[in-house]
């Protein structure tokens, strides 16, 4: 039975974005300051939103740069604006508008990007997103959150409304099962421990969370019991938690469906290097290559070594080989 906020109590497969927008919609019903702009995509999420107030739900057409700047103008006029499109079109087509008008002016605009990593599967390279976190990390004032499951997405929707300044939300695979099976203390900028183990720590962002959670079982069979952290916020990074990890674990791995250059792995590496971490560190992600294979998300992730077996194998090889 579906519970409140669209989350299934049976932990079945639920749509992350659906949960996010259902929650946002409930908030927008009460708060007439919330505007949602979309670039002619995502119709299945927004039907009810439009019914609340068509004047605050605007399909800006296939023109992302304009959409981002219209959002800037609305935000300069006191509105709380959400902008939605597929990541490369939103982040890369609209980048200069994001930089000059939203980030420099530190406006209350939330950029909602769909399709992190290879979530768009066979739709191909134009729709894949392996550079966006790196791009967004380099923009001052920008906050980056990649929710790990529908529970995180639900709580993020609620927190985002009152969040000040530019916020980039990166949605990944939609249908992964819930990882968080209990209530969680979700807060932008704070990582969440999912499993507390020993020796090895795995820090994950976005919807790789479910896959890495599954990889834990494989690692347990090989007598490894790693700690697992959902690092949904890549910027500002929870440095305190990473410094704690540096103190407590002999090896730290990051996992992301993003280029290993500039994403979560780079962000964590910066903290570890500046804090003189002496343990083993490895970034697991896309190895700075475009993926021109055709296939669904799982197939493409596997090709990059980002399925549960591939991730477990990398961790075992790197960790055991290091001993």
């Amino acid at each position, binding site marked *: 039975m579906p519970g409140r906020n669209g989350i299934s109590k049976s932990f079945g497969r639920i749509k992350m974005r659906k949960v996010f927008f259902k929650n946002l919609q409930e908030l927008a019903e009460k708060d007439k300051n919330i505007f949602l702009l979309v670039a002619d995509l995502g119709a299945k999420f927004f039907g009810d939103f439009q019914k609340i107030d068509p*004047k*605050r739900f*605007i399909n*800006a*057409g296939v*023109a992302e*740069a*304009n959409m*981002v*700047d*219209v*959002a*800037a*103008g*609305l*935000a*300069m*006029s*006191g*509105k709380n604006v959400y902008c939605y499109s597929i990541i490369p079109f939103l982040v890369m087509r609209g980048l*200069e*508008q994001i930089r*000059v*008008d939203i980030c*420099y*002016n530190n406006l209350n605009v939330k950029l909602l990007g769909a399709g992190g990593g290879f979530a768009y599967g066979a739709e191909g390279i134009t729709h894949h997103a392996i550079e966006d976190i790196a791009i967004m990390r380099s923009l001052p004032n920008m906050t980056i959150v990649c929710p790990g499951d529908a529970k995180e997405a639900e709580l993020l929707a609620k927190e985002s409304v009152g969040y000040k300044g530019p916020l980039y939300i990166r949605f990944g695979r939609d249908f992964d099962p819930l990882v968080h099976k209990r209530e969680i203390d979700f807060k932008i900028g704070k990582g969440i421990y999912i499993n507390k183990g020993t020796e090895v720590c795995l820090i994950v962002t976005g919807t790789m969370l479910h896959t890495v959670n599954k990889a834990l079982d494989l690692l347990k069979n090989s007598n490894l019991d790693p700690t697992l952290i959902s690092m949904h916020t890549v910027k500002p990074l929870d440095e305190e938690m990473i410094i704690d990890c540096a103190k407590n674990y002999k090896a730290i791995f990051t996992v992301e469906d993003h280029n290993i250059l500039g994403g979560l792995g780079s962000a964590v590496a910066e903290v570890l290097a500046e804090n003189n971490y002496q343990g083993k560190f490895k970034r697991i992600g896309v190895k700075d290559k475009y993926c021109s294979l055709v296939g669904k998300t799982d197939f493409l992730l596997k090709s990059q070594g980002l399925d549960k077996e591939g991730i477990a194998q990398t961790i075992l090889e790197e960790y055991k080989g290091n001993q």
Partner: protein
Amino acid sequence: MFQDKAEVAKYEALAKELRKEILDMIYRTKSPHIGSSLSMVDLFTVLYFKILSLDSKNPKNENRDRFVLSKGHGCATLFAVLGKKGFLEEEEIKTFAQDGGCLGQHPNRDIEKGIEITSGSLGHGLSVSAGMALAGKYNNANYRVFAFLGDGELDEGTVWEGALFSSHHKLDNLTVIIDRNRLQALGEGEKIINLEPLAEKWESFGFRVKEIDGHNFEEIIKSLESVPFEKGKPSCIIANTIKGKGISFMENDFRWHDKCPDEMEYQKALEELK
């Protein structure tokens, strides 16, 4: 019928003062864009001294008219006029393009100082203005939005995205003013990217268009006083101007897009502005 000669004489005198200040600012700091700044002066004079509802004592008034300078490289004119309107202190204007100063060679958003947007990258201002106009419509506010664009800027595709959006949403509280000086950084606009027929383009994008002489005060006043030209449509004023207007040897010479006068040229220009 507009016949107040005294009023026109007042604007002419103001415009001359502004030109002197712009020349000084740019000469003193070896800055570029004098030609681009001078073509805007007469339009700015009317906008700031007759049309815009703005109050430097209440700069954040939510009902203020929004003036958006999209061609940010012409900001010497904006700063000079904001000085005269009490938004900027003389001392602040003296810091233009200086180390640690508060005014750069392109403007940064600062509502207290009367600067609505950060510009310098072309093709942003119209879309941001459309967002402001849309918020105004949603709030049933009376303020108007004026977006001031260069004609070279119209090469940017985002201008046309903004135009489509503005007419689709019937933003008749929005007026686009185009500084049609026909010269851009590297030469004659029409030889670089042909914009003509320009009025027809804006008409076909859903704007109501008027073409004026951007140095004729009567025409400037008449057009700006009559916006929106048609209920339910954004307005577009194509102001035919002269790059470098007011300093004979700079007029209609694209090199003054980024050239800065040397001492002899400065003295000669000062003579002409006496």
